[in-house]
């Protein structure tokens, strides 16, 4: 594909040149030198009423943000992992997340492209890049210096239903959850520095100890938890900037005795945390579809997919914990998680199964029912197979996530077709037995969220929000519970069968 696109562009330029259609006078550009990045990026500029304006398209690329344009009100929005910006032509105010930023001069639209004044670069772009940007008008080079997040402290807070660990940071940080062991959670804050070594030996609530140490790439921390700990969820929060890990309690009676024995080892060795898996199916990553700015579909009465999926996921988490699984969620609140990030979270947590929860929708209000989907790769052109390093056709190793190329990473799930299909069958069987809704069967789809999952993965469409009856059902706690129970039973049966096969 990439080759084709390139060839197409090259051909386009040749044809355009031949036709004499290339614009003769190119606009000026300002080069942005980003520290830590070897390749400078440049931003096209034009002059409007004596002021330099920057191309919004180039600025968005620099910030790693996607652009959306709403032709009805001529509004443009940029969205990156952390920020959302909206602005409109002729308006000198932009909305950065929830703050209004005065750009001093209005945004300009010209030839279908949007141009932003310098104030945008200093304020909005700087915030999006979490950096300070130095640029003087008339200069051809702008310097971007990362602010570098520092971890300044940590504390534990008890809640009614568990414990929250708060890691205070000097700016917005990134966080990845890594865990292998029921007795601890390993959190990594990439790119961060540590002001002082942190070691909280006096536990609070479910946390018995917390340690943080810095390495070259960031800060690694281990949270040791007591056997009462159930689900974990890590968040990045602002005002003040911090990383939060919420640990929710499971009543002791719900933990099977075998798990309890294992979990009593409160100070596991590092190898236990990051070491190899036992091969047992113990950990399930539940992925509530959509969230935050991504509402997903919505029903005629206004129920949004992001809320409905979270409700089912929460109930499913509770039931799976009761069945003896360790459960994680890619999000446990109304937050935006990019698609590719979801499989990344599952892989880093070394989950044994991945269950994504979605609500279906269609152009027709009449469509209804539940579907269990697994990943089926789009028939790839032959060139992509031979592009693998070494030319081999063998599946990519599942342990070298960091080393694997993008191509291999994205095809991990294709190698797990049989397992994922078996999991889909098991969940589908349980759902069609217990739910009275229309059974749409199992279906192989090129699902972007599942593509990078290095474990058996399914995508459950629990019902059609676009259908009035099903929307009403999905808004009903009893039905949500029925759906969760059916999925949990399917997951449990899959585990039992797979354990049985190995013995």
């Amino acid at each position, binding site marked *: *594909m990439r080759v*084709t696109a390139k060839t*197409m*562009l090259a051909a*386009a*330029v040749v*044809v*355009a040149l*031949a036709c004499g*259609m*290339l*614009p003769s006078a*190119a*606009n000026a550009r300002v080069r942005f030198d980003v520290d830590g990045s070897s390749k400078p990026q440049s931003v*096209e500029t034009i002059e409007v009423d004596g002021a330099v304006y920057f*191309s919004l*398209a*180039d600025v968005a690329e620099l910030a790693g943000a996607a*652009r*959306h*344009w*709403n*032709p009805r009100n001529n509004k443009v929005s940029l969205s990156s992992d952390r920020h959302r910006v909206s602005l409109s032509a002729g308006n000198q105010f932009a909305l950065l997340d929830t703050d209004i930023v005065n750009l001093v001069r209005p945004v300009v639209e010209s*030839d279908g*492209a949007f141009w932003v004044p310098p104030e945008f670069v200093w304020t909005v772009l700087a915030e999006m890049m979490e950096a300070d940007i130095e640029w003087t008008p008339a200069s051809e080079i702008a310097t971007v210096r990362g602010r570098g997040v520092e971890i300044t402290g940590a504390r534990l807070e008890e809640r009614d239903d568990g414990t929250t660990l708060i890691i205070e940071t000097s700016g917005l940080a990134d966080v990845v959850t890594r865990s292998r062991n029921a007795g601890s959670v390993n959190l990594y804050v990439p790119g961060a520095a540590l002001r002082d070594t942190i070691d909280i030996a006096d536990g609070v609530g479910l946390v018995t100890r917390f340690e943080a140490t810095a390495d070259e790439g960031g800060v690694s921390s281990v949270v040791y938890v007591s056997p009462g700990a159930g689900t974990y969820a890590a968040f990045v929060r602002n005002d003040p900037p911090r990383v939060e890990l919420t640990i929710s309690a499971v009543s002791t009676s719900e933990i099977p005795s075998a798990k309890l024995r294992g979990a009593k080892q409160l100070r596991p060795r590092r190898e236990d945390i990051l070491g190899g898996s036992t091969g047992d199916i113990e950990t399930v990553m539940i992925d509530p*579809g959509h969230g935050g700015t*991504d509402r*997903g*579909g*919505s029903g005629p009465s206004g129920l949004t*997919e992001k809320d409905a999926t979270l409700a089912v996921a929460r109930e499913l988490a509770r039931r799976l914990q009761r069945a003896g699984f360790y459960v994680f969620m890619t999000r446990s609140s109304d937050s935006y998680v990019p*698609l590719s990030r979801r499989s990344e979270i599952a892989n880093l947590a070394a989950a044994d199964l991945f269950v994504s929860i*979605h*609500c*279906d*929708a*269609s*152009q*027709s209000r*009449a*469509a209804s029912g539940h*579907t269990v*989907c697994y990943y*089926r790769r*789009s*028939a*790839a*052109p032959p060139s992509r197979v031979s592009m693998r390093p070494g030319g081999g056709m063998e599946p990519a190793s599942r342990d070298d996530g960091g080393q694997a190329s993008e191509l291999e990473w994205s095809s991990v799930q294709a190698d797990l077709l049989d397992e994922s299909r078996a999991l889909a069958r098991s969940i589908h069987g349980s759902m069609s037995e217990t739910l009275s809704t229309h059974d*749409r069967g199992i279906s192989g*789809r*090129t*699902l*972007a*969220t599942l*593509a990078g999952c290095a474990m058996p993965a399914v*995508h459950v*469409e629990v019902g*059609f*929000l*676009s259908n009035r009856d099903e929307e009403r059902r999905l808004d009903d706690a009893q039905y949500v519970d029925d759906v969760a129970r059916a999925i949990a039973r399917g997951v449990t049966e899959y585990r039992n069968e797979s354990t049985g096969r190995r013995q």
Partner: protein
Amino acid sequence: MNRVVLKTAILALILAIGVLFFVLSNRGPIEDAALEGAIDEELGQGVQTVELAFADRAATGLLVERRRIEVPEDRTGRARALLQALAEGPEESGSVATLPQGTRVLSVFFDGTGEVFVDFSGELVSNHPGGSTGELMTIRSVVRTLALNFDDVTSVRFLVEGKEVETIAGHLDASESFSVEQYR
């Protein structure tokens, strides 16, 4: 490379190819003999019977609607006209539109190896009802419609406002092309 220049270059290419096809196709009958339908030679445009694939009401499959519409003779123009008709929805009852309200086909590009690039307006994404089934119906109806009317099409790549997109409604990977084999 500069985005504006690129965009201009792509438009120029599409225009140039369009002109080339117009010139070539004016010299003889259209190549796709499988299609019945009269061509009004004098107008340089013709009314043809085309096949458009819409979704059925239960969103379980596609229903093909045969319709006579006026289409340009060149391939890209014809593809655009077909997809625009698809976007405007079915005439027969029992079928359901698969492209969201307001979706326009901005351009079509045949890459010569069986792959077709179709650039849709932003409404394809912003007005989409969501759901992986709804998304699947959108993709399949476009893929099937192109495959029904152009024998040599093997895969379809979706672009939105000239740009690659990760997905159309949040589920199906649109960063690669959709094969006719799998999505028809």
